[in-house]
């Protein structure tokens, strides 16, 4: 933590959907190696923010920089190739593949096989496959579901699918992993397991940016938090600072006398 270097900076990011401002002039910076949380009530614009960072949605204005490279207008797969991977709020595992194939797909960008060499199955292809499979197995072991490696992903319990998504996101050695509500739908045992995995990966130098509603998790593992309500950033700081921020409390508990909660029409 000593020499903090920014890895992702979001500057004045705005997204307008047909006249409705979903994300309004939001800025923040994620430092290398930290766990960074974005929180806010339902409909606050967190997912929109995520989608802009990963290139799923184009931003209306503002900039996103990843390791000093501008991400705007990059396609999602290009952003992935630069070293940002993600998980999804409503699980997006490749349900037509086995677990290990899912993870191997995650290693896609680290492989070189092309359609011709693949079709002819050259020795180099075979080599690469074996290596990738070994790495995938390691990644599965790291999240603790290696015993399910040959199951069809679709048949996994919900919690394991989440872990699978994380293994898939991690295998390509990304610099930043975005987690979209990783705890949603997990029971406490599963949540704990997931938290452990995240903490372990962070120790290995991975940076996490995540959106979460489960405040317990957020408060216990994040280094920094940004709070968004109705598309506007209403707070930023360490968990303690956030907990004491009256604006944030208001946003969650809905105190109608409170100022600063912009209305939307």
């Amino acid at each position, binding site marked *: 933590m000593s020499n903090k270097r920014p890895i992702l900076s979001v500057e004045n990011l705005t997204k307008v959907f047909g006249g409705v401002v979903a994300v309004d002039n939001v800025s923040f910076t994620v430092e290398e190696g930290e766990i960074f949380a974005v929180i806010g009530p*339902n*409909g606050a614009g967190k997912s929109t923010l995520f989608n802009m960072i990963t290139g799923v949605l184009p931003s209306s204005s503002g900039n996103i920089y990843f390791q000093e490279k501008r991400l705007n207008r990059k396609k999602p797969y290009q952003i992935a190739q630069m070293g940002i991977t993600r998980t999804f709020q409503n699980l997006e595992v490749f349900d037509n593949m086995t677990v290990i194939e899912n993870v191997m797909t995650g290693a896609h960008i680290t492989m070189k096989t092309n359609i011709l060499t693949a079709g002819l199955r050259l020795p180099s292809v075979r080599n690469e496959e074996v290596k990738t499979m070994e790495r995938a197995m390691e990644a599965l072991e790291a999240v603790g579901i290696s015993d399910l490696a040959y199951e069809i992903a679709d048949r996994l319990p919900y919690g394991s699918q989440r872990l699978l998504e994380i293994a898939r996101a991690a295998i390509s050695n990304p610099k930043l992993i975005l987690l979209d509500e990783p705890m949603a*739908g997990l029971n406490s045992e599963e949540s704990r397991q997931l938290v452990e995995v995240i903490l372990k990966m962070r120790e290995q130098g991975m940076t996490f940016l995540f959106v979460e*509603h489960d405040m*317990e998790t957020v408060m216990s593992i994040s280094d920094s938090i940004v709070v968004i309500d109705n598309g506007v950033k209403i707070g930023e700081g360490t968990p303690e600072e956030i907990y004491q921020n009256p604006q944030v409390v208001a946003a969650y*508990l*809905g105190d*109608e006398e409170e100022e600063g909660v912009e*209305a*939307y029409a």
Partner: protein
Amino acid sequence: MLKVTDLHTHHGYLHVLNGINFELSEGELLAIVGSNGAGKSTLLGTLAGVYRPSSGSIEYKGKDITKQNVQKMVSSGICLVPERRQIFSSLSVKDNLMLGAYHRYRRDHKKVHDEYEEVLELFPRLKTMLNRPGGLLSGGEQQMLAIGRGLMANPKVLMLDEPSLGLAPLIVKDIMQILRKLCDERGATIILVEQNVKAALKVADRGCVLAHGQIVISGTSQELLNDPKVQEAYFGKMEAAKV
């Protein structure tokens, strides 16, 4: 009026509702609060017949209605005003309201028109924009329209999913008062799902907190408002809220 016993609902592999029990009497306003993903919307969806429960029962006026589909639910008087309003954006305000009475329009043509006037009395703002397409209304107006449309179904039980979502506090207050009025003056039974805990509990008779598909706290709204655990539940410092 409405009795829910050990209700379970699955979304694929996800066990969303994990044994819900509650009873509701006529004219009561029940607020259900809880964090995102707790299963509130699924609960309302299950009650409205949108989702099939995997086990458990729903009794309405002593009759088992667990397996009814949406159309039957609406006809028997249970109506859901969905999250994010879901109005018919290209249809006019009037058409939106009229479609609310779809299931009885042909039978009670005249009565529907009378009630249409009544509903408009409840939402005077809508009166001025009857021919405007629903999509051009402001968020608050759309919410009123959605509630009005729900009322046109002439429901005995009205369910609202996060009516305050994305609305300014003043408008939220308005809407909450209207809901209260509905209960008091028309004897409607209302289930209100809200994230805006304070606003909801202020108007509700009773409230319950939903977490991980189960009701973890319930009581009168006053009790809940004063319960420090409710506030804590939102910030996750309370292990009790977790299973």
